[in-house]
């Protein structure tokens, strides 16, 4: 059960320190002592009963990382409830199943709002109305392609290359065809929805926290994502001849 919580947190965008605190909090409330070994792809823990009479160890693989803050905040609330309401193990298990089955936002809402974010970026960098529309369309299609690629179980980095390629191509073409005077703003902003913000910020949090190894792993992950974006961008730009 504790392994479930730890791996869920780790794979959905919580920092190493947060995983440790939350698992410790729940274990303490249930009357156990727990020692953790946290790496980015697996989680190992030893649970000891408080009087030291019995202990058990276990290892679990962490699923591939994604971001789902609803789950992170849900488990954080759950851990407080464990302390305050003295939940039993069964109740906690039920709650975790409920949390993992919570729905994401509807796909169309996600696509539209992220596309709106892309258009907002374009405005912030000084683009005009036409460029904003271009950025909106490019972001929308780019995210759509990424979701489809992930559904087809492509390598996640490859999915990002596809997405950045599509977005750049769509924002570069109007310029190529002479529909829009400048392309710079739309081009620069149409791939921004792919930036690895969570891995990079978590990497720094881990590094400051003393979890150096996990911080480096996350940082390298963010770096590879950036290179994937750049690769898609470059190929599409060569095609558009910019």
């Amino acid at each position, binding site marked *: 059960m504790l392994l479930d919580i730890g791996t869920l947190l780790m794979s959905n*965008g*919580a*920092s190493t*320190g*947060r995983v440790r*605190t939350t698992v410790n*909090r729940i274990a*303490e409330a249930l009357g156990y002592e727990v020692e953790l070994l946290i790496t980015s792809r697996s989680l190992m823990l030893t649970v000891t009963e408080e009087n030291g009479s019995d202990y058990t160890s276990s290892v679990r693989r962490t699923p591939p990382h994604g*971001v*789902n*803050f*609803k*789950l*992170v*905040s*849900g488990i*954080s*609330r759950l851990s*407080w409830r464990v*302390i305050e309401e003295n939940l039993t193990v069964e109740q906690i298990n039920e709650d975790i199943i409920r949390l993992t089955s919570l729905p*994401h*936002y509807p796909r169309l*809402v*996600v696509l539209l*709002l*992220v*596309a*709106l*974010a*892309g*258009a*907002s*970026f374009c*405005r*912030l*960098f000084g683009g005009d109305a036409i460029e904003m529309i271009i950025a909106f369309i490019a972001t929308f299609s780019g*995210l759509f392609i990424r979701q489809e690629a992930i559904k087809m179980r492509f390598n996640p980095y490859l999915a990002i290359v596809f997405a950045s390629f599509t977005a750049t191509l769509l924002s570069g073409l109007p310029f190529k065809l002479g529909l829009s005077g400048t392309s*710079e*703003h739309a*081009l*620069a*902003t149409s791939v*921004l*929805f792919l*930036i690895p*913000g*969570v891995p*990079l*910020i*978590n*990497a*720094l*949090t881990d590094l*400051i*926290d003393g979890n150096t190894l996990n911080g480096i792993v996350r940082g390298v992950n963010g770096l590879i994502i950036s290179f994937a974006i*750049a690769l898609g*961008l*470059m190929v599409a*730009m060569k095609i558009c001849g910019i």
Partner: protein
Amino acid sequence: MSLEILLLLEKGIWFGFAALGFAVLFNVPQRALIIIWLMGATGGLTKLLLMHMNTDIVLATFAGATLVGILSVSAAHNKHAPPLVFSIPAVIPMIPGAFAYRMMLGLIKLSGTATTSETYSQTLGETASNGLKTLFILMALAVGVAIPMLISRKETIKKIRHKSDADGG
């Protein structure tokens, strides 16, 4: 002057929307969405205002990110969610996309089309400048957000100890 303020406020609205888009992408709980919109707008406006007063862009971004980080701690207490749920979507609109893009463009030029030594050194200079700006702004963002989060977590841990001590006693 009033026109400038209006223009700033308009940008604030866009900052908010950019933050909102990322919040939805990261599947943030619904009750946090409005707060994130406000925090994105506040952080962005802080940065723009400081830049308006001739502050360096790196320092202005750092101030904006720190403000978001501090706000996220109180938001976390009110809405019962970890601070990073609020702070990460709210600082993402401040990411230096334009600089990063120009750096990429420069790198591509350097590897291919810049032939004469004069254009080469000019492109090299521009690329290095844009790249360094990108790097430092990113670091300012991450550190600005992370510092208040680290402080707040210490407070939370203290609270737990307090509680278990009280239970034991």
